[in-house]
């Protein structure tokens, strides 16, 4: 059974329809990358999946059970953990306290403080620092660790690369790759195509809130994705 099943999801901000009838599914242990240009509706999609913004229509199933209108704080208790855009680290809490917030739902599973510190040794060194003084890359690592400590059924990652130097992004995606390779089910939203393709099993491309391309990540032609990004090709993808 799929961990996450989304069908016909529409999300509106006032008159603006940011997500317009998107369907997707993520199987157990699979990593799906949702790609698209700015304003394609990717982050709005994740916000709706995490319960931060309720959809106008459509359904979200977690392990077959509907969670479409379940509020965010209950959704993470059921197993949907979001690494939000902009990290959203608690600035006045220490790094360790930030991570311990991930334990708030008390979900059992393989991830504990030790496992996260093993994954991010630099974070372990900074455990007593306040979240607000960390660099963007360090904050991103803490945000990922915080979500992992909820031991989620599905991990949602929003724009891990945003505003970070390429070397830092590469290091973070090394970690994401380890996390997904160890069997964690994940949905990754990303603008950085190369990094997304490193971790994804499948990709789904959004344009104007609609799905314009679905394909396995292996052997995916970059030009095909680029066309879908900008809406050059409206035909179903075909090998060139």
């Amino acid at each position, binding site marked *: 059974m799929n961990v996450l099943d989304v069908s016909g999801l529409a999300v509106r901000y006032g008159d603006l329809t940011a997500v317009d009838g998107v369907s997707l599914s993520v199987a157990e242990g699979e990593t799906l990358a949702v790609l698209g240009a700015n304003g394609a509706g990717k982050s709005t999609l994740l916000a709706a999946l995490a319960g931060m913004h309720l959809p106008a229509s459509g359904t979200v199933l977690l392990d077959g059970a509907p969670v479409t209108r379940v509020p*965010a*704080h209950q959704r993470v208790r059921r197993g949907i953990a979001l690494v939000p855009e902009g990290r959203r680290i608690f600035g006045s809490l220490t790094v360790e306290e930030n991570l311990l917030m991930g334990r708030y739902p008390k979900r059992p599973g393989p991830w504990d403080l030790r496992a996260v510190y093993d994954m991010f040794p630099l974070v372990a060194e900074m455990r007593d620092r306040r979240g607000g003084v960390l660099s963007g890359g360090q904050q991103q690592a803490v945000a990922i660790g915080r979500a992992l400590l909820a031991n989620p059924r599905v991990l949602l990652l929003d724009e891990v690369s945003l505003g970070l130097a390429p070397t830092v992004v590469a290091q973070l995606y090394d970690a994401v790759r380890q996390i997904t390779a160890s069997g964690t089910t994940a949905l990754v939203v990303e603008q950085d195509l190369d990094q997304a393709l490193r971790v994804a099993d499948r990709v789904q491309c959004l344009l104007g809130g609609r799905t314009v391309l679905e394909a396995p990540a292996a052997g995916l032609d970059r030009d095909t994705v680029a066309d879908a990004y900008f809406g050059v090709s409206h035909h179903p993808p075909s090998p060139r």
Partner: protein
Amino acid sequence: MDWLNAGVQGVLLGGQYALLACGLSLIFGVMRIVNLAHGVLAVLAAYLSLVLVQQGLPLWLAIVVVVPLFAALGYAVQRGLFNPALAQVGQDAAGGARGAGELAPLLVSFGVAVALTNLLQEVFSADTRKIPTGDLASAGLPLGDLSVGVLPLLTLGVAVAVIAAVQLFLARTSTGRAMRAVADDAGAAAMTGVDPKHMYAVATALAFATLGLAGVFVGMSTQFSPGYGDLVLLFAFEAVIIGGLGSLWGTLAGGMVLGLAQTIGAQIDPQSGVLAGHLVFLAVLVVRPGGLMPRSVQA
């Protein structure tokens, strides 16, 4: 000699102000809400314990009843009045850091303050009252050439203990940690499984519990009437601002500074004690608008 006495009395008075201000400081620190009903609620606690004592309950038992009652009242007020007011404005889609929604709860609390003051007047009339404490209110300890009142000393001890306990709760417990997380970013806290509405209500319950306790101590040491809440709010607010908004140890320090300013001012000119307190408050606002120890609620 007189100056030393003024100093000691100022610190003791500061203890009462700090105890009164603790709840105001906590609510502001977690939610950025200024609760204008703070003063009249303290007076309500004083009347409640007065009624209980008049029914024959020992004072300590009246406190044991009033404090949990006020905690429950705090939870209900937050969920029933402040949370809906907060939700009306500012809540952006992502649950935003904090929106522009602080004015609405301020206005609601103003409404509560006005209505409750009038209600107390209807029920208890405008006569001044005092909670009978037997010998406690007049008892004094000799300290060198000075005499230190037992009740003010007890109040100061309770103030320090309450502030230390709340700080310990915020620093060491997982609920306290979640409360600080909600204060930082309510939306992000929700993403980790914390229900911000519930956590706000828990914070207000805690604040009201300390407020209930403070109200009983005010009622034991001072002649109070329904309108006395205005003065309580004023002094508590000044203590919070002087100490730095949202910092509990700062609030203790702020209470001390205010108490000292009032007693030393009164030593200079017996008519000008309260005025001296207001002038120090004004001076702090001008020189250090963030207060002496500006910080949001934290460990």
